[in-house]
């Protein structure tokens, strides 16, 4: 079976700073992969390279066997249709009401009528725990956690084949976070989407991931089933999972 997404030796630098330094990863169809790693290690950059928002300096990125590494996002319409993306900062369109944000892909890609699209949007908002009263508000009137959930609804509304979740549970209370975890699991199990998620929340990672990868200094230093993340035998992963300040990963702080 061919991989849904396949990365081979992907590199990306900003000036002299190497952010991705040879990432190789295959994601199977209907698999849920979670990337963990310290803040600023390049997790979001990795997703953006696959989406074509940033172009990788080197390496191959294949989606359903199609090479896309050097195709900017604006030139790959057919590939974009397969993707949904939850941005770390939500990136909601603040000139549009919440429902139109969620329905944006439906209106643009599937050319639904506005009434139909609105119904779908309200239904999707319900899945992320937002009532229909929220639909008419503008994004600026929502709390950070609500914006995150609207972003999530926008990412899954078009029922894409692949969804990227950049920190889906950050900024949510523990109960809502677990509702979102369940939602992502349901998307993968029932709708059969392929998911690539980023999270700092180990509880969430264990719950939604089939496989977990750890990004450190531009490389995936550990890739394995989520059940093995507790006893990976890798000191870096151990330190991250247990959130210990002491260990091989040295934070750049001066005391």
């Amino acid at each position, binding site marked *: 079976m061919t991989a849904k997404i396949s990365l081979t030796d992907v590199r990306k630098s900003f000036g002299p700073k190497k952010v991705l330094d040879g990432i190789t990863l295959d994601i199977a169809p209907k698999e849920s992969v979670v990337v963990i790693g310290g803040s600023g290690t390049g997790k979001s950059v990795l997703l*953006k390279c696959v*989406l*074509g*928002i940033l172009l990788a300096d080197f390496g191959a990125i294949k989606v359903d066997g199609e090479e896309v590494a050097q195709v900017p*996002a*604006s030139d790959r*319409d057919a590939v*974009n*249709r397969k*993707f*949904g*993306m939850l*941005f770390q*900062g939500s*990136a*909601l*369109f*603040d*000139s549009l009401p919440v429902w139109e944000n969620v329905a*944006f*892909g439906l209106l*643009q*890609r599937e050319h639904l009528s506005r009434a139909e699209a609105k119904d779908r949007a309200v239904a999707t908002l319900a899945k992320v725990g937002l009532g229909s009263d929220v639909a008419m508000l503008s994004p600026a009137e929502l709390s950070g956690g609500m914006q995150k959930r609207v972003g999530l609804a*926008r990412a899954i509304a078009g029922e894409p084949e692949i969804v990227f979740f950049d920190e889906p549970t950050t900024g949510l209370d523990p109960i809502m976070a677990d509702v979102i975890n369940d939602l992502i699991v349901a998307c993968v199990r029932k709708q059969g989407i392929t998911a690539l998620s980023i999270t700092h929340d180990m509880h969430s990672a264990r719950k939604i991931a089939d496989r977990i990868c750890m990004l450190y200094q531009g490389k995936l230093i550990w890739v394995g089933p989520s059940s093995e993340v507790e006893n990976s035998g890798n000191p870096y992963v151990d330190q991250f999972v247990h959130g210990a300040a002491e260990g091989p990963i040295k934070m750049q702080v001066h005391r």
Partner: protein
Amino acid sequence: MHFLSLIGGVVLTFLGHLGRLTIFAGTSLSHCLRPPFYWRRVASQMVDIGYFSLPVVGLTAIFSGMVLALQSYTGFARFSAGSETAVANVVVVSLTRELGPVLAGLMVAGRIGASMAAEIGTMRVTEQIDALTTLSTNPFKYLVVPRLIAGLLMLPVLVLVADIIGVFGGFLVSVYKLGFNAASYINNSYDFMQAFDVISGLIKASAFGFVIALMGCYNGYYSKGGAQGVGAATTNAVVSSSILILTLNYIITELFFGT
């Protein structure tokens, strides 16, 4: 040596910007001709540019018309005492040919150019433009093209309104302050008004509208670095479109009226 490299650096940056701007304009124009078209966005931009700029443009026009009448009356008084026909003539010709388009253009550049740069710039730095692309929507078609079309179409309308209001301002001063005869002032204005003066002004207006929208979108689109970057983009949009308006104004005048 150091001084020379400084000049070279400035020239290179300028050429870099010029190249990028040309590519940006070319891409935008090519998207103007290819579907899909976002008519709803075009309409909302037209309302924004046309309707909501009316107060600003109207006020500018009426006071310019009034000042023009007053100045030309006192100015002409030095040569020949109070020539009524000359005042009406000067007001009509200078408003339709020059002051209408240029003043409306500059006011709209301040109002609309700035808001375009700020809005698109904010969308850039908050990743909304990236989100648009991943949702299969080309940002040029969705953001830039509607603004260019609205600028191109609405500025002439605004300038036409400005011409009328400006002439009316001149009329007010001439009749109520300088004591001219109302009917003959209107007659004089009408006689001196030439279709070509008005049309050339409207063509200028279209060009200015395009330039305002282009500079607003361009500066917004390439802004980076958070609120500060958006602020710089806004300033650049207003300054560059104002300078371009004045430059273009000379070039178009030269083309139409130069001998």
